């Protein structure tokens, strides 16, 4: 076994060349999402013997014929009893080539908010379709959501091919219909259709003998080889989480800003602007995991020490070498998915969280509701649970934001219902206007 003597990392069993791939699975109820994930876990030998044993036993108890691999992922009692997936479950597996994080998301329309949640952190969305039923409203909704939140690719897994006699024409008809829908989206995404049987394993890990007409890769090979498109370097930003001040001992004079780097690389000596104040300073030192480093890139959790004692607090943003400067303002237009029972109407008030800034948000305009099946934009007086739409918000604080398609990390926001603190919306910044 290839244990690296310096890092203690097993070079054979742990991905060595590619970065982690985050996947969300979506599709309508019973299209076979849980079975597919169970199949991936099983065939990559991620399932442990005691887990498999428990599933075999439970399959017998619930009266399933074949061993029901879906029971590996349906983790809640109500889900096992009703045979549906209610909530996002996260799964982890690795092949010699890559590590994967899978969000198994629910199919019911009433859990669309969980679909948004699962898709929001994913690089690739696997949208399942039952080959017998073809494209459903949920299929379109999920393809739309995947593109809205910025998935880099959609895999259209046409499942249960065993039940349609591996019919090539059926597969092509479904693929063409989804392709046409995705082409009409505001942000089209590449679609890769694959004919599979999650239950029997065809074209999941191993190539199927039943689909000689299919020349593409099996699902896992596609995912292993998928190359993530790096985001363009728009210039580094650090949304300040906290000021680190030891206030005593050896480091009594130390003062640094803790946060995550997004958008680009930050280096010692870089000039930074503190937004929204506009004050400037220079990076004296950078620390990651308690060690000084010369530079830090996207995703790195750092502490930034500035040259001069400028005023910086939680919620402020350090901006360096911006190719595309972030927007500063308090009047913002967002696309959102509504996630609670209380509807959103003009004049309604919410809390917002953006980056590390929070405050009040008042809805000043409801621009439209988006019909996920037809992609038509409708006038609306309110958006209700699971609706997708566009609104304009007046914020109580200025935020330093990016348009979502420019830099997702700078363009995402949540709204919270002040009545009960529930998370009411996932929102994506489209435009931001500075105060007059």
């Amino acid at each position, binding site marked *: 076994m290839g*244990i690296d*003597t*310096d*890092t*203690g*990392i*097993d070079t054979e*069993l*742990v*991905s*060595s*060349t590619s*970065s982690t791939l985050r996947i969300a699975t979506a599709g309508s109820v019973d299209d076979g999402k849980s079975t597919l994930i169970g199949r991936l876990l099983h065939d990559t030998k991620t399932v*442990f*013997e*005691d887990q498999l044993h*428990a599933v075999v036993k439970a399959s017998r108890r619930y009266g399933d014929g074949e061993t029901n691999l879906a029971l*590996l992922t*349906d*983790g*809640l*009692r109500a889900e*096992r009893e009703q045979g549906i997936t*209610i*909530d996002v*479950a*996260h*799964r*982890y597996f690795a092949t010699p080539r890559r*590590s994967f994080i899978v969000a198994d998301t629910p199919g019911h329309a009433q859990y669309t908010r*969980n679909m*948004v*949640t699962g898709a929001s*952190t994913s690089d690739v969305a696997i949208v399942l379709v039952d080959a017998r039923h073809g494209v459903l409203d949920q299929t379109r909704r999920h393809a739309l959501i995947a593109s809205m939140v910025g998935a880099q690719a959609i895999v259209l897994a046409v499942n249960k091919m065993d039940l349609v006699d591996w019919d090539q024409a059926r597969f092509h008809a479904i693929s063409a219909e989804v392709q046409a829908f995705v082409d009409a989206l505001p942000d089209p995404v590449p679609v890769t259709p694959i004919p599979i049987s999650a239950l029997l394993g065809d074209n999941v890990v191993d190539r199927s003998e039943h689909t000689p007409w299919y020349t593409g890769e099996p699902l896992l090979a596609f995912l292993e080889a998928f190359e993530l498109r790096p985001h363009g370097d728009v210039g580094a930003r650090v949304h300040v*989480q*906290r000021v*680190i*001040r*030891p206030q005593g001992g*050896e*480091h009594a004079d*130390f003062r640094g800003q*803790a946060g995550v780097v997004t958008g680009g690389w930050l280096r010692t000596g870089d000039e930074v602007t503190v937004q929204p104040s506009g004050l400037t300073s220079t990076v004296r030192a950078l*620390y*990651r*995991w*308690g*060690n*000084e480093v010369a530079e830090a890139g996207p*995703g790195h*959790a750092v502490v930034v020490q500035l040259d001069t004692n400028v005023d910086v607090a*939680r919620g402020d943003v350090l901006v360096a070498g911006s190719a595309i400067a972030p927007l500063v303002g308090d009047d913002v237009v967002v696309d959102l998915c509504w*996630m609670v029972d209380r509807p959103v109407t003009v004049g309604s008030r919410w809390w917002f969280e953006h980056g*590390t800034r929070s405050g009040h948000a008042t809805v000043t305009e409801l621009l439209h509701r988006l019909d996920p099946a037809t992609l038509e934009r409708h006038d609306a007086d309110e958006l209700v649970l699971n609706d997708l739409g566009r609104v304009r918000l007046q914020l109580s604080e200025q935020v330093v934001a990016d348009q979502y398609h420019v830099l*997702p990390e700078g363009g*995402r926001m*949540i709204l919270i219902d002040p009545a009960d603190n*529930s*998370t009411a919306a*996932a929102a994506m910044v489209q435009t931001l206007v500075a105060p007059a």
Partner: protein
Amino acid sequence: MTALDETMLPHTGDSTADHRQASAHLDALTDEAITIIREVATACENPVLLFSGGKDSAVLLHLAVLAFAPARLPFPVMHVDTGHNFDEVIDYRDRLVRDWNVRLVVASVQESIDKGRVVEDTGPRASRNRLQSVTLLDAIAEHGFDAAFGGGRRDEDKARAKERILSFRDRQGRWDPRQQRPEPWAMLNARIRKGEHLRAFPLSNWTELDIWRYIARHDVPLPSIYYSHRRTVVERDGMLLAVGGPVELEPGETPFEATVRYRTVGDASCTGAVESDAADVRDVLAEVAAARITERGATRADDTFSESAMEDRKREGYF
């Protein structure tokens, strides 16, 4: 930075480009965990870190110390002490809090029993594991903690796989899996009302293998029972339980000596050892990578009782 020289924390950088590539996944998990810890500690007023002395909480505490360096960890750690401890674990706990300069709070299950808050099961298979939930919730209320960091991982159990990074608990400390707050982009909503609290799981996306890779990379000290040693044990339900502590022998059981190590560390009455020659972290890494049985299935009598054992305990306020 010299800050960490005061502590026992070792170097954390890895040098060559190859290593950076090979450990990209662990790098990302590390950044993610530190970011979550900083965010919750800043958004909440009075957080605490739950520390069992096990490997997950050791990694969690290590990350928390790094998150605020060179400042001191801005919140205490709390050990929910079942009284059924491995001596090695208590020694280890006390050494670690001293070396890493953190504040320790101990919540005692024995005290909950003495005060009549819980009633202890009796008999040879009695475990205090379930009683911990009451002690934990009482301590959270007594100290007014509004957030408790835990080392839970989604790969541990099916019910955990459903849990959010920030898990909301009502005034009774209950978890309602059907009313969880969505976390789009892993953005955290830490708003609560008085009397409610949050559980935060910065290691949500880690697997057992990731934990060991982190321990190897950063030389995180662990209680010695994680590495192979000779011990008198008895075999029960396919598990090896240590003899000499709270485990009472049942008729027909014969204790024997074996070379074992622990994969998890919990209440000594229900945590089993596995036969193993893995004497150091490198051996353990190889063993974990090749393992075919989950750590809980192999070593926790309490989780094998029913398919929903963990979900039921979590609803009651368990870790």
